[in-house]
């Protein structure tokens, strides 16, 4: 575990997670224990992953993809997801991972902006891709894991069968682009956050020092691979250390999750506050076996962790939950209530080693303890993103006077613990997913009934924030349950299910400032009953 990660200048993540582990004598160790939603489990050793990812790298090469080209997976959690990501990285092809709940507009935004050349998916998603394919001239190849030849896709199984397993991984310098995750902003289209192979240093270090992974651990990260946690800590961190991972192909199920924790003898578990809050509602008897199980640590990421959740875990499982904070852009954990540090329930914890964090005021100066301000990081940590794809201006805007601005707001207490406040922009954090109000508003405006809309995030006990849409209808249309359903389904199928408004408020006109911009903070105040603040720039409402 303390062996050198980088040998002979080789930063290639695909190699480090597979070939390097084999070279260290771990070829026969289980890397992936795959638990499908139905059917028997299957183990993949590091040797298996090395061969299969090598085969996939050869598949991409045979299609003409070269270093720097962009490839996406559009898959649920399944073995092919991991093999494809590792294989693409071996070939130095940039790999993006897409949530399968994305609608066609969300897919189009990401595939068009990146100029992706190939995508790997399932047959069931081919019709969605077919509807946007004409607007994706750069997309040469659509591969399907389960056939798809009749629908015009390339059959992955046939390609893999024809490809050799041996692939010579080119020496990959630290700054070589690796993974691409899109993240939402409050305005404009989602931005492609580009990472480089050198990020493996940060992910390995935090997996070892914060998650506390040890060689014999059995680790379970419930995050989807569409999320940065799913790649940084569901692929790279643990496998770069030779640790066995369990991955489950089913959705949320309290009895099944409790069974996995106990039966698979999970020692380190990484999940999200929304999931913990759902588990809190279950019968505590479900978790009684965990008290005597080898589970050593539980970690949480994605949204602030309520003190009640920590108290529940202590009661129900006899374990602490350690909060971690990071962003798509940071690539690795930056702040944490890590084991060994006294947990202050409700706080984010303290910066991890080699990370400098501060709360800055509007003048860019560090604020005294207890004062609310902008959460910023000193650039230069391993794992830091290297670009917003095709958007250099937005990238530069994130760095001011030697600080990276996270767009989160926080305060620091006198003992150096950070406490999350919220966002400094309008981005909505629902169940750990960042949703752009702009994307939801754009989807709603496509419907003939909608004249204008304003979308906000409102506090929610389960999801942290829920998406709320204020909708002003064109003349001649009236609110009805049927119309509400139509709006929900449209957002779900165009943007994503996670962006679906949980509440729709029909209204006559929306508050705007004198430039005509919708004042979302006024809508939020109206919904939550809070004070609206300064209204001097607001136009009279219609």
């Amino acid at each position, binding site marked *: 575990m303390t062996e050198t990660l980088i040998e002979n200048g080789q930063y290639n993540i695909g190699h480090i997670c597979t070939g390097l582990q084999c070279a260290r004598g771990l070829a026969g160790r289980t890397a992936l224990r795959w638990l499908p939603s139905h059917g028997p489990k299957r183990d993949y050793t590091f040797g298996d992953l090395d061969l299969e990812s090598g085969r996939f790298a050869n598949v991409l090469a045979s299609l003409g993809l070269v270093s720097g080209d962009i490839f996406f997976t559009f898959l649920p959690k399944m073995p092919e997801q991991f093999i494809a990501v590792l294989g693409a990285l071996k070939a130095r092809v940039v790999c993006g991972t897409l949530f399968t*709940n994305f609608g066609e507009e969300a897919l189009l935004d990401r595939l068009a902006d990146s100029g992706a050349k190939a995508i790997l998916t399932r047959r*069931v998603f081919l019709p969605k891709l077919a509807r946007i394919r004409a607007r994706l001239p750069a997309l040469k190849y659509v591969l399907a894991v389960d056939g798809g030849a009749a629908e015009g896709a390339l059959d992955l199984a046939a390609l893999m069968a024809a490809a050799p397993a041996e692939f010579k991984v080119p020496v990959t310098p630290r700054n070589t682009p690796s993974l691409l995750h899109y993240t939402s902003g409050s305005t404009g289209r989602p931005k492609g956050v580009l990472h480089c192979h050198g990020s493996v240093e940060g992910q390995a270090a935090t997996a070892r020092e914060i998650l506390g992974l040890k060689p014999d651990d059995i680790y379970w990260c419930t995050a989807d691979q569409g999320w940065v946690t799913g790649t940084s800590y569901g692929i790279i961190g643990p496998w770069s250390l030779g640790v066995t991972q369990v991955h489950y192909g089913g959705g949320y199920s309290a009895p099944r999750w409790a069974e996995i924790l106990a039966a698979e003898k999970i020692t380190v578990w990484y999940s999200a506050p929304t999931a913990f809050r759902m588990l809190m509602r279950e019968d505590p008897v479900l978790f009684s076996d965990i008290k005597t199980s080898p589970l050593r640590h539980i970690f949480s990421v994605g949204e602030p962790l309520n003190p009640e959740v920590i108290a529940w875990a202590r009661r129900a499982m006899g374990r602490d939950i350690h909060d971690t904070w990071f962003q798509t852009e940071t690539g690795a954990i930056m702040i944490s209530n890590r084991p060994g540090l006294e947990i202050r329930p409700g706080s984010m914890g303290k910066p991890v080693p080699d990370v400098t964090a501060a709360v800055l005021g509007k003048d860019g100066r560090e604020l005294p303890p207890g004062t609310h301000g902008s959460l910023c990081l000193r650039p230069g940590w391993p794992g830091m993103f290297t670009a917003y794809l095709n958007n250099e201006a937005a990238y530069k805007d994130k760095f001011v006077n030697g600080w990276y601005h996270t767009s989160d707001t926080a305060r620091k207490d006198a003992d150096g613990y950070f406490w999350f406040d919220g966002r400094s922009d309008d981005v909505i954090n629902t169940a750990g997913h960042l949703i752009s109000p702009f994307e939801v508003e754009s989807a709603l405006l496509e419907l003939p009934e909608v004249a204008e809309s304003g979308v906000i995030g409102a506090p929610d006990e389960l999801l942290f924030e829920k998406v709320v849409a204020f909708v002003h209808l064109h003349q001649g249309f009236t609110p009805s349950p049927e119309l509400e359903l139509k709006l929900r*389904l449209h957002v779900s199928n165009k943007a994503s*299910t996670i962006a679906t408004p949980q509440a729709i408020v029909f209204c006559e006109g929306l508050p705007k400032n004198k430039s005509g911009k919708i004042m979302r903070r006024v809508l939020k105040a109206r919904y939550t009953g809070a004070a609206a603040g300064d209204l001097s720039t607001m136009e009279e409402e219609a």
Partner: protein
Amino acid sequence: MTTMETLNEIFRTVFDDAALQIKPEFTADDVAGWDSLSHINLILAVEARFKLRFNQKELLTLKNIGDLHRTIEEKLKTGK
């Protein structure tokens, strides 16, 4: 059109898959995109199409599409 055929139409609309062919034994793990949020869309769509309302207890006992189908049929028959 039978209840199952209507239900299939609803599933196709909610999950944006014109070729989807549901089966009674299907659960959320068998339909691409069937997560907790699209489940709410599904229930709302079923209620609107069949003009019925589910209570919390009924929703909690649904384990698969067959259960959903049976519950709809019973409610249509009894008018509750």
